[in-house]
């Protein structure tokens, strides 16, 4: 059962920010007093959002508590690895059990399997272990910034995080049952369920080629610790490069399918219009004429050192942030201080792998008054961010270049 604390107010929140960004600009009291929402989201969000700490978590921005949907404030995204207690939380359905490891089993089988198996957490841990640092980003991250607005959870920038995941390879799990050559998709089910029987249970599938990728894991550790309850304890699927919808939490069923999965959460949910986005990874067994499942993340970046409108001092100022993509790797981050007329290359930070947040920084000579900072990331296959939103009805794949203003005095 979910329990909640309402003990941490703004004092706790600002203390948490201070520890996560010691050398970075401190919040002014005015900023700390309110919930740090992203400019551009629907006005009504202000009336319901609050900083709130779920058990085991630092305060996150609460957009909804049933089901729990909490996003990370900008300050939690200043490091290439997001700590577990600062990691965002997203659920579709509100019946979320606390899984008992003693009775926990993953049922592995399906019409595409030669056999079937039931795995305990220990069984999973006895298998060869692999690690990957990978970004987990909700498909709908930045939905709140869509113009026009579209219905759903009105996320700002923080429905994402990056962690070091450890677990067994999904392909090794599937080797235990053996796959028929007719298998086209692998389906995942989790322990959470709907409040009423008539609501479709949350199930997802990925194409067999992605399931057999050596980076795709059934993970039981996050940053060296067991997964937090709200991030999928005791095990979740990790699909590096792909949006969070496929990363099934509390995974308790892995099913080999010889036919495309028919389920609300595959279609009509989580669809993007065909041909509008430059995605490489295709999910052909689920493609239909008008649309296709969302797959890999689009190239993107975020300024994390400053908020739009922040006050700074004249002279040298370091602006920094992160960049990420669908797993091709970040080649370059460029910064423009004249709204895109001319560009300079930012310095890239620690490389934790092609699926990870890539830190970047840029030194700006701030003049008195308004200074603008625009950022564009490019990946190793030449994809870059967009200048104008590619509108779609679900508000996915918003990778519009930021252009923030810093006010120097």
């Amino acid at each position, binding site marked *: 059962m*979910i329990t909640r604390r309402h003990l941490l107010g703004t004092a706790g929140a600002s203390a948490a920010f201070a520890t996560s960004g010691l050398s970075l600009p401190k919040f002014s009291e005015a900023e700390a007093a309110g919930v740090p929402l992203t400019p551009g989201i629907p006005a009504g969000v202000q009336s319901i959002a609050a900083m709130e700490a779920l058990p085991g978590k630092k305060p996150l921005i609460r957009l909804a*508590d049933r089901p729990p949907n909490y996003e990370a404030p900008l300050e939690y995204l200043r490091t290439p690895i997001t700590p577990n207690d600062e990691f965002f939380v997203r659920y579709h359905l509100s019946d979320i059990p606390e899984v008992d490891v003693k009775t926990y089993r993953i049922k592995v089988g399906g019409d595409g399997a030669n056999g079937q198996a039931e795995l305990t957490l220990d069984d999973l841990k006895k298998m060869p272990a692999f690690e990957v640092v990978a970004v987990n980003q909700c498909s709908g991250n930045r939905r709140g910034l869509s113009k026009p607005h579209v219905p759903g959870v*009105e996320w700002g920038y923080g429905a994402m995080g990056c962690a070091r995941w450890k677990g067994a390879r999904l392909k090794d799990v599937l080797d235990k049952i053996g796959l028929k050559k007719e298998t086209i998709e692998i389906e995942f089910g989790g322990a959470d369920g709907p409040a009423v029987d008539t609501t479709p249970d949350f199930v997802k599938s990925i194409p067999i080629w992605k399931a057999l990728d050596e980076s795709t894991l059934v993970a039981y550790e996050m940053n060296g610790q067991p997964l937090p309850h709200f991030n999928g304890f005791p095990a979740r699927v990790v699909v590096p490069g792909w949006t969070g919808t496929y990363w099934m939490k509390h995974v308790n069923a892995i099913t080999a399918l010889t036919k495309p999965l028919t389920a609300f959460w595959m279609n009509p949910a989580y669809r993007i219009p065909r041909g509008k986005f430059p995605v490489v990874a295709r999910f052909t067994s689920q493609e239909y004429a008008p649309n296709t499942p969302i797959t890999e993340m689009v190239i993107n970046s975020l300024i994390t050192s400053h908020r739009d409108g922040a006050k700074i001092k004249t002279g040298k100022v370091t602006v920094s942030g992160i960049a990420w993509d669908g797993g091709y790797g970040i080649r370059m981050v460029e910064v423009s201080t004249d709204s895109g007329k001319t560009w300079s290359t930012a310095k890239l930070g620690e490389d934790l792998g092609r699926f990870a947040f890539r830190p970047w920084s840029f030194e700006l000579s701030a003049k008195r008054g308004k200074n603008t900072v625009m950022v564009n990331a490019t990946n190793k296959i030449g994809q870059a961010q967009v200048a104008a939103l590619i509108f779609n009805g679900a508000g996915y794949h918003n990778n519009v270049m930021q252009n923030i203003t810093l006010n120097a005095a």
Partner: protein
Amino acid sequence: MRAFAIAIVAALIVLPAAAEAPIQLKKGEGLDKVEGNCAACHTLAYIPMNSPYLDAKGWEAEVNKMIKAYGAPIDEADAKAIKEYLSKNYGI
């Protein structure tokens, strides 16, 4: 799996320590239908969160989606009252 009515009762009785953040919606005709139906499955925070940008047609589509896609057991009269309430109080 829980029945519809039981879900409400469980939320009130089984989880006294898990008090949900109270969401006070605007007073108006149909609010009782909104609270009685929508809150069975999710926090009412979703309503102000998705405002104010939907017109009457937009809110109608949302309520229809809840019934048809998400299986919310809402009868026709309540659905009509809910659509009117949302459009009037949280619409454009």
